[in-house]
């Protein structure tokens, strides 16, 4: 009787410790992956010439064409950076996934497979007991395997990830500066030209120009906050990963899980914000 109780206590302990509890890491990585896959600003950077071309003439137009070729040439490499970070985060999410290291399906089929042959004289109850035990022990073993694998990935990934994210932040800064110059070229064009068509003779032209200017102003105003949001999102991803590394041996403690959860929430909120700006 006592022996039986002891076995159950052991099983219970194993079951509890057998849970890897990486839900928050998974959520953080999942949200970071979605965020890194956001390439709107990179595309906008690539398409600069298309938007500014109507407002350019002469030497400035010629130089703009050269820049256009350079931007288009750089685009694939810029996209690769997004993709690489997204892939890293997707893989981290998968590695910390609930089912990735789950072998209970295979173990159930083990028990089922053996029970299919009652004619061979195997006791059903024994099979169930062994299967249950195997289940618990395996879950315990795979959970620690999973934790080790996740730790290994975070340790190996942190330095290159931090460098890459800092690089992405710089890129966002260049996109933004470039966007400012485009905006001032387009809006500046109207500031220079409109005063010369204010007489009644050109009323139609001035009105059309003003209406068009309104649309352009609205467009630029809508894009502006996205640069700030993108930089913030990248920073939160970097801080989140740093937090994971700092607490690498303590990933399942409640305090760490709570703080990782906050990072996931922030990153998601910033992404939603950007999407609502777009929409």
């Amino acid at each position: 009787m006592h022996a039986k109780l002891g076995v159950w206590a052991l099983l219970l302990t194993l079951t509890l410790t057998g849970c890897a509890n990486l839900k928050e890491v998974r959520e953080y990585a999942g949200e970071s992956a979605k965020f890194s896959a956001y390439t709107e600003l990179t595309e906008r950077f690539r398409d600069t010439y298309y938007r500014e071309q109507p407002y350019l003439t002469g030497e400035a137009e010629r130089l703009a064409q050269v820049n256009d070729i350079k931007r288009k040439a750089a685009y694939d490499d810029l996209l690769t950076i997004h993709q690489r970070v997204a892939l890293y985060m997707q893989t981290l999410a998968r590695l910390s996934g609930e089912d990735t290291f789950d072998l209970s399906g295979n173990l159930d089929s083990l028990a089922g497979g053996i029970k299919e042959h009652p004619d061979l004289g195997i006791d059903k109850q024994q099979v169930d007991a062994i299967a249950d035990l195997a289940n618990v022990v395996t879950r315990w073993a795979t959970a620690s395997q999973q934790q080790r694998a996740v730790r290994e990935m975070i340790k190996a990934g942190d330095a290159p990830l931090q460098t890459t994210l800092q690089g992405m932040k710089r890129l966002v800064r260049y996109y933004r500066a470039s966007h400012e110059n485009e905006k001032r070229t387009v809006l500046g064009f109207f500031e220079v030209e409109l005063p010369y068509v204010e007489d009644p003779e050109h009323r139609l032209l001035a009105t059309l120009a003003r209406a068009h200017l309104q649309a352009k102003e609205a467009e630029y105003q809508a894009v502006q906050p996205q640069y700030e949001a993108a930089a913030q999102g990248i920073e939160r991803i970097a801080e989140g990963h740093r937090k994971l590394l700092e607490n690498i041996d303590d990933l399942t403690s409640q305090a760490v899980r709570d703080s990782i959860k906050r990072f996931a929430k922030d990153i998601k909120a910033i992404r939603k914000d950007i999407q609502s700006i777009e929409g």
Partner: protein
Amino acid sequence: MALANEMEVEAFAQCLTECADAIHERIKAAIKNREIERDQAQSMFQEESLLRQRANGLYIDAANSVVAGLTEPQDALLAAIDNANDRIQQIKEIAGFIDLVTDLAVLAAAVSAAKPAPILAALKEVKEDVDAVNSQHS
């Protein structure tokens, strides 16, 4: 070294942008005070746009420099990704082995019960499991 270079390029681009901004303010003031004709305003605006294009060209150079500096970190990230995928693969292999063990247990039972039909059936299962485990290596 790349970083210092980027910073310099960025600072210079910023400088050109500020120059263009100053020209723009000057054009606006001149137009307001009726100091210049339309064609003069237009050619000044072209100069301003040219400076902005030069600045934007430098931002592209700086971006390319960031990309070049990220080659190594990107490779390291890929290595971490590959390593993680290997770990996931290992678990799949263990799953394959559990299937194998199941069928071996059935085979052993069939052999000890000395029944030819289940022995043959179990052997077939075992062979499939072994194939499955092997295929995960390729």
